[in-house]
């Protein structure tokens, strides 16, 4: 059971320590009881809470919950809580099977979310994944208003106000990865640093890609008549190191005129830069 406790500790590294002092205090070194107790707390937190999985969750620790009607679900997070839970669990060595049975009695309308308690007996730590929640189809933002069947497969302490089942954990990890990548993209796209919000950033990215693609098309359109006029004796067109222009050449050319229609003949219009016109006059 020790690794589970260490998991809890490491997970709470960044979060509010005050709310978790309870768990540390309450986790008695009582062999299996300790682990079950830790699970119990989580279960209590997860069950009656009804907070969303995401970051925009209620400011409540997972230890407390709102259904303060029961003795074990004492709504306060103080010492009273500890004692409540402590006394409650005094006589339970097998972890939470019996308690969760009673739990399911209390929370009736969520029948389809509850797995039969009998199946949980052999679930203790044997399954690698918390599949007890497989009945729940919700991922992400759905409110967890129904009691979660207990899982002790992966004991990870959640952050304050966030659910702990494996689905939400995986969901959270995925979201963090996505936000990381969005930050990278924000750095790539110029002018995207100031905006906040995923939707706006995505819009900017899409606009940028579209404009880049249009630029390439426009430039290749420009190249086409130029290519025809190339001196056929181009033996030496040395491919050389092309330094990145320090100024925004593409912007300059692009800004001089909107992408023209493709119907123009390959006359001198392709030399539409001012510089080009200067050259054109003497000839």
């Amino acid at each position, binding site marked *: 059971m020790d690794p589970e406790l260490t998991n809890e500790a490491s997970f709470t590294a960044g979060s509010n320590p005050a709310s978790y002092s309870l768990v540390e205090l309450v986790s008695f070194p009582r062999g299996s009881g300790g682990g079950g107790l830790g699970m119990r707390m989580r279960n209590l937190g997860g069950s009656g809470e009804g907070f969303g999985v995401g970051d925009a969750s209620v400011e409540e620790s997972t230890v407390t919950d709102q259904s303060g009607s029961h003795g074990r679900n004492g709504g306060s997070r103080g010492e009273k809580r500890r004692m409540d839970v402590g006394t409650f669990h005094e006589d339970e060595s097998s972890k939470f099977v019996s308690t969760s049975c009673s739990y399911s009695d209390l929370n009736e309308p969520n029948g389809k979310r509850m797995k039969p308690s009998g199946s949980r007996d052999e679930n203790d730590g044997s399954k690698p994944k918390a599949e007890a929640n497989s009945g729940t189809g919700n991922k992400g933002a759905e409110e967890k208003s129904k009691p979660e069947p207990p899982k002790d497969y992966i004991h990870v302490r959640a952050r304050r106000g966030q659910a702990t089942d494996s689905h939400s954990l995986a969901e959270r990890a995925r979201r963090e990865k996505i936000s990381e990548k969005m930050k990278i993209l924000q750095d790539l796209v110029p002018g995207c640093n100031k905006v906040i919000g995923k939707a706006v950033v995505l819009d900017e990215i899409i606009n940028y890609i579209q404009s880049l693609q249009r630029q390439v098309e426009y430039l290749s359109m420009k190249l*086409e008549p130029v290519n025809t006029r190339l001196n056929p004796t181009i033996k030496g067109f040395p491919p050389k190191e092309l330094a990145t222009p320090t100024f925004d050449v593409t912007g300059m050319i692009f800004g001089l005129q909107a992408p023209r229609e493709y119907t123009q003949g390959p006359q001198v219009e392709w030399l539409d830069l001012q510089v080009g016109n200067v050259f054109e006059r003497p000839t």
Partner: protein
Amino acid sequence: MTTQIIPSNPDSIKTRFTYSFVRALKKLNKSRGASVSPSMKETYRRYHMIRVASYASMASAVGSKRAWSRAVLWKIRNRTSHRALKKKSRIHALTRTKVRENPRSDLNFHQENDLRKLVPGGEGMDFCRLLNETAHYIKCLRTQATTIVVVWAVVVVGVIVGRIGDGCGGWVEMSVTCDK
């Protein structure tokens, strides 16, 4: 008189792209033959070929490491059969099942869909991978755009010099020096 200049980073994507693009341009130019006044269709076709050449050389410069470059190369290679497929798919477009909005998509479904359409090969990826590919794609598009500009500028200068000093033939040196 040609002056060969070794690029400082011979293996970067930019250099590889430049080489292949210039080669493609030369090939296109050679195959053109006499520059009769071309019809509209001919012009448009040539423009299309240049565009395809730029995308193809970009994708081959990147190689097969990225999903989008693989998708681009695949599309180009199977162009003719692709056109037939597209016609067929248009018939089935109405019967295609609507993509269900994934509740994980965090209300960005619309942009995500647009992004998938923009990035080549973006249809069959999850969002996380799509963002990866987008980042790399943006980088490569940018180098492509800036490189084509320089190529164009060099060619233009070459043509101008060729016009002004017809027998001088020194446009090569001119273009080399102007790029320094």
